């Protein structure tokens, strides 16, 4: 009986998922979780009836997607952690549902990527490598964040931009991150342009930074503290700013040498 209510809630979540408001889906989800608790299926154990396991897993998956749609990374991470024990169950106890699993994992990877948690991103990647079913970049959901990370690392920002814009985005939940990624690559490009170019014409900066109009370029330039003059952008000279800093560094170098030499002397004394 209780599992029938659960089933109903789930179908409701699945069919109307994207159109539901976050508050509505939250209410449904908490009801589903309460039912799970009553059925003792909140976490998988050996005593959990087998037919409840897929239901529990689906509840969490829906919860994860809902929290992503609502831009709530903490709730999403929570659901991902909840799902982990379900995913590690053997296939004969709980038949795996690879597309959904990959979707959630892909979203999690993307979240880690946009938050700059590269260490965790790669740890997660490592565990994908030993997953037996389609844990690869050929997968539609998993390949997306993996490719993005590679392009970001080598600096092919135009490809990242294209990937975000085009229909390569596997599903709408992934689109949530596009905005964050755009601003991320824009600031990356800006900081490398500061070093790489002596000056840039306004017109081409527009395409360089993937901005819509020259007005937006000027606004962005002011935001970064760049000087706009005769249709060109001039970057503040990093050498000027770092002048007194280099003097301090020089002092640090000599101090370090003295320190090291004293250290050697002390060590030698203990040895001899």
């Amino acid at each position: 009986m209780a599992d029938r209510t659960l089933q109903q809630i789930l179908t409701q979540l699945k069919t109307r998922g994207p159109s539901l408001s976050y508050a509505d889906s939250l209410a449904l989800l908490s009801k589903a979780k309460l039912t799970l608790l009553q059925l003792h299926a909140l976490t998988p154990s050996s005593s959990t009836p087998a037919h409840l396991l897929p239901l529990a897993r689906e509840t969490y998956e829906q919860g994860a997607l809902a929290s992503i749609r609502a831009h709530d990374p903490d709730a999403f991470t929570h659901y991902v952690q909840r799902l982990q024990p379900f995913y590690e169950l053997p296939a004969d106890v709980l038949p795996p549902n690879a597309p959904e699993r990959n979707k959630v994992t892909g979203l999690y990877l993307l979240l880690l990527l946009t938050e700059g948690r590269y260490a965790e991103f790669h740890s997660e990647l490592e565990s994908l490598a030993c997953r037996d079913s389609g844990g690869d970049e050929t997968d539609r959901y998993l390949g997306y964040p993996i490719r993005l990370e590679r392009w970001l690392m080598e600096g092919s920002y135009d490809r990242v931009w294209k990937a975000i814009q085009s229909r390569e985005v596997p599903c709408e939940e992934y689109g949530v991150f596009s905005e964050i990624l755009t601003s991320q690559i824009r600031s990356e490009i800006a900081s490398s342009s500061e070093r790489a170019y002596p000056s840039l014409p306004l017109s081409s900066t527009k395409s360089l930074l993937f901005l819509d109009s020259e007005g937006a370029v000027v606004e962005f330039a002011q935001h970064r503290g760049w000087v706009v003059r005769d249709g060109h952008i001039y970057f503040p000279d990093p050498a000027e700013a770092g002048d007194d800093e280099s003097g301090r560094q020089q002092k640090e170098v000599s101090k370090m040498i003295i320190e090291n030499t004293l250290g050697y002397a002390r060590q030698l004394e203990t040895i001899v």
Partner: protein
Amino acid sequence: MPGKTPSSNGNEPLENGVRNGQDVEMKDGKSKGKKGVKDSEEEMTVVVPPTKGSKQSSGGPTPDTDEDTTMDEDKVNDEAVKVDPVAQTVAEIKGNFALLDRAVALFDARFSLRALRSISLFRKRLDPDIIAQAIVDTFPAMVTSGLAAKQLLIAIGRENMPLGRSGSSEMEVDNESSAKTPKNGATKEVKEIIPEIDIFLGILIQVYLFDSKQFQRGAEFSKYLADRVQSLNRRTLDSLSAKVYFYYSLFCEQLAPQPPSPQSPVVSIRPTLLAALRTAVLRKDIDTQASVIVLLLRNYLSTSHITQADLLVSHTQFPENAVNNQVARFLYYLGRIRAIQLRYTEAHEHLTAATRKAPSSACAAGFSATTTKLLLVVELLMGDIPERSTFRQPTLELALQPYFLLVQAVRIGNLGDFETIIADHADTFRRDGTYTLILRLRQNVIKTGIRMMSLSYSRISLRDICIRLRLGSEESAEYIVAKAIRDGVIEATLDRERGFMKSKEVGDVYATREPGEAFHERIRACLALHDESVKAMRFPMNQHRLELKNAQEAREREREMAKEIQEGDLDEDDLGGDFDGM
């Protein structure tokens, strides 16, 4: 011997010569009745005394007493008499009991370690009959110890052999192993069998079960043995229990769903290992602690639970004075974790230490190959090019071949070559667990390519860069070059309107602080090495008191000390002369 030798230089070879003479005699006597194969193994046992002797005379870190050496020689003598390989192996096994007895009596773990080391000498000859024979000979038919012995016998399927066929003392190995006079040692049966011997036999059974691939039985037996070790709680068991857990975990790894799958039995022994770790820490049991930490790390990494492994490292402290091999393993796993987490500098440090600490003998070739592979990839990821001599080591040359090609591609900065190598050797890399790391190298290849071009051309168009590096488009090339400039890979500027990259003049390296830093790094390594060698010196506990008891021994010791002082004086005189001159 003292006084005859004018200098310490002349002393060592002479002493060795004397001992060698004895040994050679013994060997000759034996080899008459033996086959060639076994002879080579015998040689290994025989070689042991001279090295000990030389250490002794040079006052080295392991001052083994003479008694020790004679005991070994006794053992060798026993072997010389026997021809039957079964009886001989049994005798060898029992020879180790003497070591264990001493370990308990002197409270010195070195003797147990030596007993464990000797397993490898007769490992190939182990079979259920030999082990059963050893058990039956050792245990008297008493109720208390009989139970333990019964368990051991069941484990190798020889449960119907009667116990207590002969005495328990190892001093009468000759009589016992010939098994003709079963009543001989009856008077000594009062003596309790120490648990160390019990566990040692257990380890032998583990070794045998592992070698004969009976993993399921091995795992069950190991579980029993681990429980027993846990309940005994004796400090002298420490190094033995470390071994017990080692084989326990090894058995689990071999069982049906193998590691990458989350249902593997390795997952289910984690609680046991963690409990063992906790107990080991509380009991200050360094051997078990070190070995269990290493096992747990291996366990987590085998199922790619990197985060858990990282947490384990951050919440435990690896014992400082653990056995060298465990330290090497620990450093390897730590390096692996750090490499996955993109902390390459730390990973490099740990892996370099691991390769240096790895035993250089051929038996550890697998470990050093694995470590070197990972180290090479990490070096590449850091932007360094490994030295060519690494690939020339004869033991590693073949194993490192794919990595050699990889390094070449990265060094030249050829993206095309790089991708074909990855495609060709994907399976090898996957097996080595370096595949995901190698995929990260792509950006390094590009960076090297850009650097090469910036060095060779003072001005080059973005189109050419794009073509040479086989990048997707000119825009990509522009962004990539800009990023390289920002990351400090090259010194150059870009001209967007005319679409080229202009290189700046390269400064003098010796004007920077880099040489100084490299120098400092090396000095620090030398100093650390010195400190560690000082720490590694050993001073056995209560050794002096024991000597006082034995007057004969003490006199000998005194003579030796006098000799050493004499040598020392000589040395000091030599040195003193120099100092006077100054």
